[in-house]
């Protein structure tokens, strides 16, 4: 199913009425996984973008110009990501692109945007090597490489841990890369590892590994797993009488842990760019608006998309449209790196990274992670 939506909702209609008569629409392309397995991330991402664009248009748009979102389903697949990027860039002639949802797809499709000299702005791509594709590639998603050391540090300060055991899924690129980042962070913090255990997808019992961990007598268990395996690991650990804190990667940063590990979900430490518990007024406003617009609670993906739209709109405000697409796209690229924002995910700015050829490339996020601990089915912020 192709989902194409030009947003002409009632909200935007109001914006149109109050807007400048000569106003032109600014076309923004969004490539998100709206069907398939990655739709669980792509759907909140779309809602975050729609909410922000609606708010901006109601307040008169960008210098009187409405934002028009052109949303395409890239299905969380590489090939579809490339197709959608080409369509948005060459056919719809968008000013810039948001997406795609998965890092895997971004690896394949972002070079298309780079070659066409069109800004691509990722809100959920956390893998290494995305922004090194080129200087038109931006993201506000904070990588595991940035988050895990802070998570470990805060957890160590709070629990006084001296040595840890590590367990990770070694048949999944995401959990394996999480393990690599944990390993580096543990080395940097000089925390000794008592034992390192692995598991595979579809394992029934994690007790043999957990029994080894129990025997190695650590102060905490570092866990790089997706919640599908991570939750049963926590349950089985508690069954074996292991009451130690768990320190999880991004895969464990999901409210689903409260459901899947119900009764055993306490004392899990995770880092996140966004928290529903964050008391900042910008965040409170975002949560209330999202709840009103969509009827559900937002998640990290919605929050990052919402902030990204505001960051881009702010950059669009600073450029003078010439009517020539190539020139305008370039002007936007030049304006974006200087943008700073304080939104739902807290204070934000860009940092240029060095590409594979040693030259300056795209832009990563500079943002402080929020470290949380689970307690009685809630996240409690610890930093």
């Amino acid at each position, binding site marked *: 199913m192709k989902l194409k939506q030009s947003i002409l909702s009632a909200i935007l209609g109001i914006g149109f009425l109050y807007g400048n008569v000569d106003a032109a629409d600014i076309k923004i392309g969004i490539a998100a996984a709206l069907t398939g397995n990655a739709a669980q991330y792509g759907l909140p991402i779309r809602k975050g973008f729609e909410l922000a664009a609606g708010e901006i248009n109601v307040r008169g748009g960008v210098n009187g110009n409405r934002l028009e979102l052109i949303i395409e389903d890239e299905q969380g697949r590489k090939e579809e990501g490339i197709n959608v990027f080409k369509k948005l860039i060459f056919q719809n002639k968008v000013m810039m692109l948001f997406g795609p949802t998965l890092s895997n797809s971004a690896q394949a499709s972002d070079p298309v945007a780079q070659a066409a000299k069109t800004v691509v702005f990722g809100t959920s791509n956390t893998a290494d090597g995305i922004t090194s594709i080129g200087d038109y590639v931006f993201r506000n998603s904070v990588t595991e490489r940035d988050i895990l050391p802070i998570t470990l540090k805060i957890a160590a300060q709070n629990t006084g841990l001296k040595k840890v055991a590590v367990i990770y899924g070694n048949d999944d690129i995401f959990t394996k890369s999480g393990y690599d980042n944990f390993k580096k962070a543990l080395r940097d913090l000089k925390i000794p590892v008592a034992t390192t255990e*692995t598991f595979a997808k579809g394992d*029934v019992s994690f007790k043999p590994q957990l029994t*080894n961990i129990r025997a190695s007598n650590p102060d905490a268990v570092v866990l790089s797993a997706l919640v*599908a395996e991570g*939750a049963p690991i926590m349950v089985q650990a508690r*069954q074996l009488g292991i009451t130690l804190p768990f320190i999880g990667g991004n895969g464990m940063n999901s409210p689903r842990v409260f459901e*899947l590990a119900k009764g055993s979900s306490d004392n899990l430490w995770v880092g996140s760019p966004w928290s529903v518990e964050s008391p900042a007024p910008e965040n409170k406003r975002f949560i209330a608006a999202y709840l009103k617009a969509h009827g559900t609670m937002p998640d990290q993906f919605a929050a990052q998309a919402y902030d990204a739209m505001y960051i881009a709109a702010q950059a669009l405000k600073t450029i003078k449209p010439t009517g020539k697409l190539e020139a305008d796209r370039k002007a936007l690229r030049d304006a974006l790196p200087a943008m700073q924002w304080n939104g739902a995910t807290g204070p934000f700015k860009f940092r240029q990274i060095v590409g594979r050829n040693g030259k300056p490339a795209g832009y990563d996020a500079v943002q402080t992670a929020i470290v949380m601990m689970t307690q009685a089915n809630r996240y409690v912020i610890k930093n």
Partner: protein
Amino acid sequence: MLAQQFINAISLGGVYALFALGFTLTFGVLGIVNLAHGAVFMLGAYSALQAVILLRLPLTAAILAAIVITGAAGWLLDKLIFAPLRARDAPHLAPMIATIGLAICLNSSVEGFFGAQNLRFPVEALPTETLSLGGIRITWLELQIVLLAFVLMGILMWCLKQTRIGRALRGLAESPKAAALLGIDVEGLFRLTSVLASLLGGVAGVLIALYTNAVFPLMGQPMLHKGIAVVILGGMGDIRGALLGGFFLGFAEVFSVAYVGSTMRDAVAFGLLFAILLLRPDGLFGKAAQRRA
């Protein structure tokens, strides 16, 4: 630690054995490698889950519901797939390929209907008690799975040895044509076997879903791979072999994690399995194929 690993191995072995029972029965009597057994296993788990969540049935009633549904699935499986293929004297591979198709259909339907994400039984419905003895811990559920694997094996073996139907089934396994000549209702028995094997798979699905706390469309796939290994190790079609093979794999996996390291687990476990098959090509209980001529 050794004692705990021993318990871990018994409980994991029980899980594998329970899954392999129905799988080996289908092969023993129908001569079919049923690659949809993992999907039926998954169907059992979803049936019980829906019974608990939607109908608010207690766990035992939910297991009965899963038995009824997977039993019916077994009946349909034979009626719609195996029987027509038998009637046409299809070659051996045809029913196996058909079960691959069936597995894909079942997995995709369940995914379309319930979504791809993990579901779980509500905590209230789960037996959560843990027995603890001097640092060794086992949950009631694990104990029940192990006991059930033994009890079901006992019942199956007794039925096959002592009852009229069992004798008929054994005759059938030997030679369907001879059995038919002796006045045995061959078609009826084939159907019965399919029902029995499927509901065993269904029960295994519920119990193992309770154990792992994870119900998802592809949950049967890794079990199927291990189940095939277990059944080949035990001797294709042999009930005792399924049980012994299950425990062998459980022990091999757990003790390779304990003494070699978890990254080497599958290499050690399946290496051992391979070594045994080199020594006994027909599996632990397999009879040499002497009746080919």
